[in-house]
């Protein structure tokens, strides 16, 4: 990972939601970077702050959220220092595009697909010179490329006339039509059938190659991570606990949480055997313990874990782990 090929660098980013029941620290001092043309996975259980990360990058957080600190360097420009207008003009839907979590509801139900695509294109710098007809042609082309049959006639239809998989294709078309340098894909295949999921994943892979796009791929499904990503960050309760090339995550998981997750996957162990689980529940974000967030559920926890928050530290080349007990654990693994 050479510095000059870095397209996105997130540095010490913290975000809090202020709600009636107190403040929830959804992101706690997270740091990672994305290289050009890289597919970077972000994995974690529900509520760990994955979507918040993506929304923070585009600064489309809800009002209740507040960015507490950090930098988001995109192509060397700190997005957090830009004003709303600039971000809107130059980044959203231009340099960066995003596919949000819920395909069923990601498109506005009362406008045709064409209307929505064209509005996105009108906003995009690449299409300023085109007239409506040309834009329509381009949109149809894009839809066809994303595997929508008879795109010409279907472009005039409303979202509810598409199946879930096709909606996701439309979303991808919308994302790629912007020619982005970075795509934020927030669980694009959750709630789809495995066969459809496979189709979408393949489509994504192909398009990334074709459009030279970097991808931040968010999912809670480790097996998908394994399929598509080059590198992966594991999130737990607002922290990144481990970053590593994807293969290493599976072959030599560093953090106890990562290990737990991988062992949990049914089918990987023997049939009918009791699956290993991670005891307890994700800590409540409103009152986090002072030390390691995972301490409660960790079998290897020690005093130090209870007092201090571990920071990401390089464990191996390109492999970072936030755990005080890493050394001990890795030696244990090697022993086995």
């Amino acid at each position: 990972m050479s510095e000059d090929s870095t397209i996105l660098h997130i540095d010490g980013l913290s975000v809090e939601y202020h709600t009636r029941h107190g403040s929830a620290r959804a992101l706690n001092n997270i740091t990672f970077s994305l290289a050009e043309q890289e597919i970077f996975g972000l994995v974690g259980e529900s509520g760990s702050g994955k979507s918040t990360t993506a929304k923070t990058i585009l600064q489309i957080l809800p009002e209740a959220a507040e960015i507490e600190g950090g930098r988001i360097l995109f192509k060397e420009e700190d997005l957090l220092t830009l004003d709303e207008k600039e971000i809107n003009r130059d980044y959203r839907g231009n340099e960066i595009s995003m596919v949000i979590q819920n395909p069923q509801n990601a498109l506005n139900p009362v406008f045709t697909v064409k209307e929505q695509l064209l509005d996105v294109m009108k906003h995009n710098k690449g299409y300023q010179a085109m007239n409506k007809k040309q834009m329509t042609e381009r949109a149809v082309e894009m839809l066809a490329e994303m595997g929508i049959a008879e795109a010409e006639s279907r472009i005039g239809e409303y979202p509810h006339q598409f199946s879930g998989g096709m909606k996701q294709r439309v979303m991808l078309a919308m994302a790629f039509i912007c020619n982005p340098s970075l795509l934020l894909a927030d669980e694009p295949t959750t709630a789809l059938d495995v066969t459809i999921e496979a189709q979408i994943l393949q489509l994504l892979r192909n398009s990334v190659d074709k459009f030279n796009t970097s991808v931040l791929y968010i999912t809670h499904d480790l097996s998908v991570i394994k399929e598509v990503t080059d590198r992966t960050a594991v999130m737990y309760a607002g922290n990144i606990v481990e970053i590593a090339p994807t293969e290493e995550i599976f072959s030599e998981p560093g953090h106890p949480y990562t290990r737990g997750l991988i062992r949990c996957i049914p089918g990987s162990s023997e049939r009918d055997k009791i699956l290993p689980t991670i005891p307890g529940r994700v800590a409540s974000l409103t009152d986090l313990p002072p030390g390691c967030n995972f301490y409660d559920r960790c079998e290897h926890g020690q005093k130090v874990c209870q007092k201090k928050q571990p920071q990401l530290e390089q464990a191996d080349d390109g492999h970072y782990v936030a755990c005080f007990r890493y050394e001990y654990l890795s030696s244990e693994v090697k022993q086995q």
Partner: protein
Amino acid sequence: MQISARGLSRLRRKIARYLSIMKSDYRTYFGGALIFIFLFTGILAPLLAPHNPYEQDVTRRLQSPSRQHLAGTDELGRDIFSRIIYAFRISIMVSFGGVLISVTMGIMLGTAAAYFGGFIDNALLLLFDIIRAFPPIILILSLVAVVGPSIRNIIIILGITIMPRYGRVVRAETLSVKEEDYVTAARTIGANSPRILFKEILPNVFPSVLVLSGMDMASMIMWEAGLSFLGFGVQPPATSWGLMLRQGYDFIQILPHMILFPAFCISLTMLGFSTFSESIRRALNPKTSSPVEAETDEGMS
């Protein structure tokens, strides 16, 4: 029917939950206070009224408000303030009576339509649509013309006129609730139809009915007032705000208080019912998080 101690405490807990949500809503206090005043004044009218509302004295007719007659006197020299207070009773009767009738009829017909389906469903839907085909006030007027104006008739007519709202809501909700998994779940544990209807479906239909009826209490008061204002409503010697509005109308220029007082009562009561029902709507929505109970999320041990 006996309520077990456990059932009682459970009920108490549920109500406590609703109340705790409502407690955090200003509308509860505002609407509740207005409704409280409404009911309180109506029920205690004989104690609160300074004069006999029926006592006439033509020599003191049409007096302006004074210390003795807080809202002046009407054309027969009766104390308007006392009459307004007694009129609360009419409004209570009309609003609660009318809504009660339409709710009972609506629930019965609505569930029947959803339950039996087919011809009966279509016939009942047609009935609802026929009633709904008339602008309400015009249907009310024509029905009053048929049966003649009296409190009892008006209550019944108002009830019939808005009944289709409940019938349709209950029908639609019953149909959609019927499809819910938890109703199927009740079937799989062996519950029979009446049980499903009364234990699973109706309780889930009821909240919409409750909220609607809160709004309709306001409409009832409005329609009665309008009807009486046109002279088709409550008949003397009983009096209602609408009737007082009508009486005062002729004196609007020299004695505007004669209409302002009843107009105020009508508007405030309607305001009370509509705000309160909005707050109930919020509380009964199970998705609204109760500020008290959202504390800890203890779970699997």
